[in-house]
């Protein structure tokens, strides 16, 4: 069905329902994607190699402070997540990915069984690429492909712009960024050092997030949201 060229793309699918995990896995595999499924947002972050430091979250107690980083070498080209999950919702997961300098380039797609416009807009404004209504169908999956390409071929010019624009928080972003490019031969102690930095800056990053968004809006970068919104309005008429 799918083309061989797509087989290199790896999708991380997140859903608390075992039926929906089975379904999305089959849909993606039929479309020739490599698939990993997990049942919660925190496991998704764990797979992506991001430390989760939210103390209020009940599962965080089970997660060691330093991840083995087994997955640093596994590139994830797209995350597709259910919206409504106990504990960390798909929206929370989206925010955590977009707040992380090492993960923010990974496109995120949200799935939900409910057609709530305010929810959909909130997700798109937070940086989701697409919003799929459940149950997801084979025909929906064609909408994933353009986002894969975008992630694969990173535009170095955009990265520079990003650095200047976010100079305020550049210091905090530097560490995880370098962590992202670590080879798997990296020693455990170095990874530990980065993880510690990661933990310390978590609250700072969250505080700065509002500023970051504000500055993005001021520089007219909200065209991104406009574009995705426009695309959704096309979908809404179909549903």
């Amino acid at each position, binding site marked *: 069905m799918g083309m061989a060229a797509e087989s290199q793309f790896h999708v991380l699918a997140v859903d608390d329902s*075992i*039926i*929906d995990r089975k379904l999305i896995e089959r849909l993606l595999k039929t479309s020739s994607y490599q698939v990993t499924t997990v049942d919660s947002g925190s496991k998704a972050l764990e797979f992506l190699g991001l430390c989760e430091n939210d103390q209020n979250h009940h599962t965080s107690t089970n997660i060691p402070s330093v991840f083995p980083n087994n997955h640093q070498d596994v590139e994830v080209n797209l995350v597709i997540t259910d919206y409504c999950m106990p504990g960390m919702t798909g929206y929370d997961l989206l925010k955590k990915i977009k707040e992380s300098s090492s993960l923010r380039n990974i496109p995120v797609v949200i799935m939900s069984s409910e057609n709530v416009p305010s929810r959909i807009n909130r997700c798109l404004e937070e940086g989701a690429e697409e919003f799929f209504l459940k149950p997801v169908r084979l025909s929906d999956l064609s909408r994933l492909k353009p986002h894969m390409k975008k992630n694969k071929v990173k535009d170095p010019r955009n990265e520079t712009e990003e650095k200047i624009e976010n100079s305020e928080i550049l210091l905090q972003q530097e560490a995880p960024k370098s962590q992202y490019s670590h080879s798997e031969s990296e020693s455990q102690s170095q990874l530990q050092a980065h993880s510690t930095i990661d933990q310390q800056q978590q609250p700072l990053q969250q505080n700065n997030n509002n500023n970051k968004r504000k500055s993005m809006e001021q520089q007219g970068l909200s065209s991104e949201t406009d574009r995705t919104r426009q695309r959704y309005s096309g979908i809404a008429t179909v549903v």
Partner: protein
Amino acid sequence: MDVGQMRRQWMDYIKSMFEERFLDGQFLQLQQLQDENNPEFVFEVVSLFFDDSERILKDLSFALEQQSVDFKKVDAHVHQFKGSSASIGAQGVKNACIAFRNFCEEQNIDACRRCLLQVKQEYFVVKNKLETLLRLEQQIVAAGGSIPIMELGF
């Protein structure tokens, strides 16, 4: 009975399930995802649905038996059930869940208990029919036949 007869029987049976609105087009999506590399896909998903449904029904019954009913909890269970039934195309269960959720919002305990009976009824009917359908499929495959491709006007 030869394979041809069994295939016709299967077609008639699944058609009636659509006509009587037990199933919707989503079930055909599942059929589409089944191929020679995954010959058991529909059976696996439907089995997961049975296990999941029975757990949810137990949780729902328990939640509605309480002295003071936690409607948020009830609604969360019904929401799950609505999602899983929609995912396999069990239209009757899904529609019963939609009605159920309205009464959760109203916090109408009597209506919620009636809805639980209705959802249960819908579930057991569709379960029975799906089991018959899958048994027919197994017989067709065992006799060396293949499952017909369904194409309804959805």
